[in-house]
């Protein structure tokens, strides 16, 4: 990775608390443009809080955060496709209505691409969300986000609830998708083994701060695999 590359995200000594609980503490990191970065760490490490702030949902208490060259705010939603953590979709929608909702309310939604993704994820237009399995619903939400033609994708636990075989297929589709588009992608996941091949970079977080960050290739060369790094740090 070129160290002088433009940065899509810059965080400098960020802190964020909810009441008395400190969720992010003096966190600094960078995410280069057009990279696919994993955000890894145990539950409660502050990954979702960080991703929410990047998506413009909640300002940091202290520190500076820049996303695509500006302070993230509600307007950030125009240029950031964000898959929230523990998200569900509107139960009364069909796949078609979900696509219509996204197309009407979010910018850069590519309908043709969405239908291609639905097809490859095994989703049909008339399927109703309330009748879907957790995995099908997760695939729907992921497809909706991936169909947006925006410079930054922020995916918080996109594989949660999806079975292993489907996960592998989706990772394959993601590799093709990211190679085709020049997007910056930030993914938080606990499924490190199946998704490892996706990442150019990894950021390891614990107790609200970054404990290690670097290029995935270098980390693998030094320590075997990202999963092993994870075990060494948090095991």
């Amino acid at each position, binding site marked *: 990775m070129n160290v002088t590359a433009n940065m899509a995200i810059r965080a400098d000594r960020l802190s964020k608390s*909810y*009441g008395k609980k400190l969720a992010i503490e003096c966190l600094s990191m960078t995410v280069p443009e057009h990279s696919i970065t994993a955000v890894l760490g145990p539950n409660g490490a502050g990954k979702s809080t960080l991703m*929410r702030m990047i*998506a*413009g*949902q*909640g300002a940091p208490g202290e520190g500076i955060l820049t996303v695509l060259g500006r302070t993230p705010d*509600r*307007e*950030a*939603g*125009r240029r950031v496709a*964000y898959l*929230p*953590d*523990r*998200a*569900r*979709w*509107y*139960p*009364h929608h069909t796949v078609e209505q979900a696509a219509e*909702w996204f197309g*009407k*309310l*979010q*910018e850069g939604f590519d309908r043709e691409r969405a239908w291609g993704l639905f097809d490859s994820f095994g989703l049909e237009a008339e399927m109703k969300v309330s009748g879907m399995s957790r995995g099908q619903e997760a695939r729907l939400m992921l497809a909706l986000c991936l169909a947006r033609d925006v410079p930054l994708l922020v995916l918080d636990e996109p594989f949660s609830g999806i079975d292993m075989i489907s996960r592998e297929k989706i990772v394959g589709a993601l590799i093709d998708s990211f190679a085709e588009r020049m997007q910056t992608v930030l993914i938080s996941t606990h499924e490190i083994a199946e998704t490892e091949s996706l990442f150019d970079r990894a950021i390891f977080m614990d107790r609200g701060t970054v404990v290690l960050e670097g290029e995935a290739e270098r980390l693998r060369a030094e320590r075997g695999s990202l999963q092993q790094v994870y075990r060494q740090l948090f095991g």
Partner: protein
Amino acid sequence: MPQGTFFFLVKHELSSRGSKLRLGKWLWIYGGLLLLLAAVAVAIWGNNADYDPSYFMFTAYVFPFMIFGFAVEALKREWAEGTIGWWLSLPHSRVQLLGAKAIAAWIRFTSYVLLYFAVVLLLDVYSVAMYGDRVTSVKGMLVLEAQLFGILVGISPVMLAIGLLFVAVRRSGLKPLLPLLWLLMGIGGNVFGWMTGGGQLTVYGSDENLGPLVYPIWIWLWLIPIWAIAALLFAATIKVCDKHLER
């Protein structure tokens, strides 16, 4: 916001689970049975001097609390269904997002009120056909309903705003303010009762020469400060959603 997006948001709200009565044909069956029961009851006991169809308008005192409930339900649903992250990530102003919820809740409220008033009017027509001048005339009922509807619609923005603010505060770091909002809801919900003078409705039904009841003009003037309060509460809801939400 592209043209039509706001209406799309309103439509989305109206089609949400909980916004629709999903009983289908059973709704008509139960509704028909209730009407039949009311018709039989009026035929048997309607000649009693204590009966007048205008008494059914006392139910109108519940409506301000109903719209508060609809507003609470409209915003709370985003958390209950796990869709809050999507809703908050929409690149549209909070005025538009919350406004769409408020408008949808208001449409729902107005539909229920109109339906109820239509049923009471129908009952009045039936009662007049059976007992003539002894009960409130159809014209009198129409005048009463029109005024009550106007007052209900007039105070509805404040109850809507209290409902939305209530949920936003509950999901924020400002939770200690909740008891104050309960108090505000109680006061706001009773404003309708104070404005319409409560007991006036009973006098209306027991008068020998039942003429249309006309509320004094000051009632309508009261709506101006009520709307100003509603606007302030709505602005406060936007502020809480922008700055203080804790997901």
